[in-house]
């Protein structure tokens, strides 16, 4: 449980949970990290959950079918991409990104989880808590003989209670 980072505007420490931070987490804000978010053009999908025992926020990131089709078309010829996370923040403070470059085929389920984090530029560290505002950005880079592609997607959502959402991509084991 944490104080609303927007307290300077709202003057309410638990506004994200309508003043009830024990049983709720951000019911009306910019989303909770316990569901799937899809970009407007269908090019990106990110699914979130929070593990029951270790309290990790898990995510998996996929390229949408339209994007995969476009990348692998004969005029693009891109069948593998590198996905990185150039920016990540907790309560709007930038942290060292918890995901290194992964070079994989375009249908791959890019996934990781986050619990402990380190602020960039030597500003300490912390552990994810319910109600924290998590901001993550993914950068997709691919290339072929003919074309280069760079595309990105960002999500900001609040951390739900442990055990929220449906674990993936390996099923129930990811909920430990």
């Amino acid at each position, binding site marked *: 449980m944490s104080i609303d980072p927007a307290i300077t505007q709202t003057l309410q420490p638990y506004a994200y949970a309508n003043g009830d931070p024990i049983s709720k987490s951000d019911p009306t804000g910019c989303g909770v990290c316990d569901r799937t978010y899809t970009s407007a053009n269908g090019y990106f999908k990110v699914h979130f959950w929070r593990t029951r025992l270790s309290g990790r926020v898990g995510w998996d990131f996929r390229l949408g079918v339209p994007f995969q089709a476009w990348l692998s078309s004969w005029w693009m010829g891109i069948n593998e991409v590198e996905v990185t996370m150039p920016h990540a923040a907790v309560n709007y403070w930038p942290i060292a990104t918890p995901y290194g470059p*992964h*070079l994989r085929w375009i249908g791959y389920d890019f996934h990781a989880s986050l619990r402990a984090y380190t602020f960039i530029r030597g500003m300490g560290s912390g552990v994810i808590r319910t109600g924290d505002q998590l901001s993550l950005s993914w950068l997709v880079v691919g290339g072929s003989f003919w074309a280069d592609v760079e595309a990105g997607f960002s999500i900001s959502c609040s951390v739900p209670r442990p055990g929220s959402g449906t674990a993936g991509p390996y099923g129930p*084991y990811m909920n430990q």
Partner: protein
Amino acid sequence: MTDDYAEWLRRNMELNKELRKHPRRLTPEERWLLRDTVAPVLDDLAATGMMLPDILEEAHEDRGVDAVYGWVLEPDGMGCSIQILKGVSLADQVAMLAEQIQELVADRLDDSGLSIQWPRCPEHPSDRRHRLVAEVREASAVWTCLESGNVICTIGSLPAWRDGGAVAW
């Protein structure tokens, strides 16, 4: 987002773009840190019958923290980066790296159609949702059971057993 951070982010993205094209060879000090940290995890992989990953001593990224990076090269030409934070204890480094290697192993096991739980928990051998968790206890990097909280062994000293068949990297 402050202008200062935006500028840092822009420069960091430029740097990473360059590292993607031209990975940086690790310095001798970085190489030793990578080898010392990876060694116990490789011992556990070998003890449990897993094939060992091909870890290149080169940095493909810079996340803006004091860290050493390596690149796990896979046979199909794919790969991913691993990170070892500097400024923390060797036990913390080993535990954090073990977690990263676990994810890679899970990927390879899943690709091979095998159960992805590595290392298997000896306290719950039949529970397919359960694998050991890398933690630091009393200044040592250890494998623990998440359900019971018990320490199973230090990382690098897993007992030898075949953990679901050899997996090719």
